[in-house]
């Protein structure tokens, strides 16, 4: 699997790493399919889902004529009509609440929250109804809703546009939380989220929207001919890079940073494994634990402020499952416990390659 380095907004990838990646890309150029952006993969997934089922409807703010502020729904209103992809009044609770009602009445709504922090007005509907309806009705009502959230930092966004809000949702029983990190997963996991009968909060790392990857998108799409393919992403972490000395556990926007750190560490002679969780809920404890038992050392990487977060949960679970295999305490590289900073300060906040490497250095190697 290739992970692009568009995530190097932090400017922390060493020049050597960048050159190596470039060279590899050039060599591969001739034989590989055209590059696909993360945004295009999402757009294609939405179009294919609209095509596959009349029950799928898209709505949100500016997603119709404009195609969304990130253009993820570009062209869908034109192609499928306003009854399938439309703008709502500016009211996030209204969007989520209407989605719940539509789901009660047989639809599969896919809603867009314009930015991470603008989803907060919808939290009551999401927490009190979308997450609980299936349980409340003992399974009589399913909530096949996807709440797409462009999220996290790395784009120099101003306040309210860069929050890593996944911990709130992951903490809420009844919600599935997806966080794709690669272009192929963007397609695969969005299709899977739309097919899911459970509500899915779908985190799209903004800094990856324009990242590219070379793979045969049409071949991937063809896997969906005649229904969802048997292979699932939900609850199935992948080993994004194999290694033997330590494990970096990451998801969404942090995977590319972790990959760059692993690459840099390799140059220093350290073999780092990178686990891409893909879905935070459900969590693939088994893959994470197997990796950490193998390497004996682990660092969790996430942009979210670390206190009481997905990162803390991961550390606790690794400790519970891998205690006797651990050569060092499990550490974390997360955002600081501060409000997401202004653009000029975000590089100090975001987990960087250097900070990850420094933390890996702290894993008691000398012994």
């Amino acid at each position, binding site marked *: 699997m290739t992970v692009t380095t568009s995530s190097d907004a932090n400017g922390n990838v060493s020049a050597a790493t960048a050159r190596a990646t470039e060279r590899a890309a050039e060599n591969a150029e001739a034989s590989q399919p055209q590059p696909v952006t993360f945004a295009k993969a999402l757009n294609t997934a939405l179009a294919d889902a609209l095509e596959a089922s009349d029950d799928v*409807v898209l709505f949100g703010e500016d997603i*119709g*004529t404009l195609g969304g502020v990130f253009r993820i729904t570009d062209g869908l*209103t*034109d*192609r*499928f*009509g*306003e*009854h399938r992809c439309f703008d*709502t*009044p500016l*009211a996030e*609770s*209204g969007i*989520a*609440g*209407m*989605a*719940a*009602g*539509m*789901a*009660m*009445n*047989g*639809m599969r*709504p896919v809603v867009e929250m314009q930015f991470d922090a603008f989803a907060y*007005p919808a939290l*009551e*509907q999401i927490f*009190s*109804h979308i997450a*609980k309806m*299936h*349980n*409340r*009705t*003992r*399974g*009589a*009502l*399913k909530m096949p809703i996807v709440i797409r959230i462009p999220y996290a930092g790395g784009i120099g966004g101003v306040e309210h546009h860069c929050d890593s809000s996944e911990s709130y949702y992951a903490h809420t*029983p*009844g919600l*599935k939380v997806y966080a794709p990190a690669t272009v192929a997963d963007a397609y695969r996991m969005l299709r899977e989220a739309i097919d899911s*009968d*459970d509500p899915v909060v779908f985190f799209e790392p903004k800094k990856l929207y324009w990242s590219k990857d070379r793979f045969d998108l049409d071949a991937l799409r063809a896997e969906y001919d005649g229904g969802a393919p048997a292979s699932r992403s939900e*609850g199935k972490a992948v080993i994004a890079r194999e290694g033997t000395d330590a494990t970096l556990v990451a998801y969404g926007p942090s995977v590319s940073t972790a990959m760059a750190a692993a690459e840099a560490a390799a140059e220093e002679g350290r073999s780092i494994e990178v686990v891409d969780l893909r879905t935070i*809920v*459900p*969590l693939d*404890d*088994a893959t994470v634990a197997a990796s950490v038992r193998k390497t004996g050392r682990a660092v969790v990487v996430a942009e979210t402020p670390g206190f009481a977060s997905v990162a803390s949960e991961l550390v606790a679970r690794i400790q519970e499952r891998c205690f006797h295999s651990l050569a060092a305490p499990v550490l974390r590289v997360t955002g600081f416990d501060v409000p997401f900073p202004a653009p000029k300060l975000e590089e100090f906040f975001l987990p960087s390659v250097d900070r990850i490497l420094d933390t890996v250095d702290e894993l008691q190697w000398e012994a």
Partner: protein
Amino acid sequence: MGTPPIGAEAREEERAAYLDETARKFGISVEDYLLPTDGSIRILDETGAIRPVAEQGTAPGHEYPLPEGDDLLAAYEALVVGRRVNDQNSALVRQGRMAVYPSSHGQEACQVAAALCLGEDDWMFPTYRDSVAVMTKGIDPVETMTLFRGDWHGGYDPKKYKVGIQSTPLTTQLLHGVGVAHAAKLRGEDTVVLAMCGDGATSEGDFHEALNFAAVFKLPVIFFVQNNQYAISVPLAHQTAAPSLAHKAVGYGMAGERVDGNDLVALLAVLRRAVRLARDGHGPLLVEAHTYRMQAHTNADDATRYRQDAEVQEWMAKDPVTRMRAYLQSESVLDDAAEARISEAAEAMATRLRDGMNEDVAPDPEDLFRFVFTEPTTQLNEQRARLVDELARDAATDTEATR
């Protein structure tokens, strides 16, 4: 699929045309169509006599024909049963058989009308206070009371009955009603949705969002507000400075109407017209019913801390049940035999509630994990196994102890 019209101007024309068309249907101006009439629509006076038509609160374009006698007898039966349900449930709470019961005593006319105005495929979105409406729509009383007995957060299948689970987070359910109506409209079905809330709840943000969404998407939703004067302890004057709650409709481009919430005849007339309009594509509408919460907010509340007994006494005289009984007797629709039959039906309902609530249904602790997702996650299965193991060990210890 054709490209939708682009730009503000094209959309503006579409918007104006919609209201014009509806107002034209009644031969009145858009303003007169949207605004409620000067007073509440009230057909029966407090003694149960028909008021002169000129005093019924109607206005041109806001006319309400008198509902039929047989129909009213059935409604009266539901009213009497509803009153019995309220009083039986309050008694069951006092006896410790139910965790809580927000009674609609005094509001039964609203409860009954909300259910009876709807067709079989229409949906209702009730609140915690609307148990009588839920039962009147045909849901088994014991299934309805499951929530209040404390067995589970909901006791019936909303899809089967087309009734949402009685909602506690204020006005959140209105948006679910909007969503159900929107889905139906997209599929070309003529479903109508009646979404309910209280007076205090109209201050919530979701009230605004729901009304606005319904109006913008032109959905067949009737927002039915039972203004019972209080939100727990807080009187309506603390919630709004609007001339009435029905007036709120006009800001959304929606018609509003006020109705005497203790006059079942007027309620049926107003709500049925609203349902008809909504079904014919003229929705949404807002109906405010003026009524009174005769008892405390719930059994846990002490209403003497915030209101005078004299006020309660005043409303006693406006009781919806006695008023309806007097009217139907004067019309010779209700005779002693019918009254006896109806009392029996009410008693049968009370017995059913007592039997149901006195039955101890042991909860299954494993249910905790069954419905969180469509399939339990690995983590939930681990937690379930742990609980099962813990229970098995407890059971073993108990057996040991009794040996």
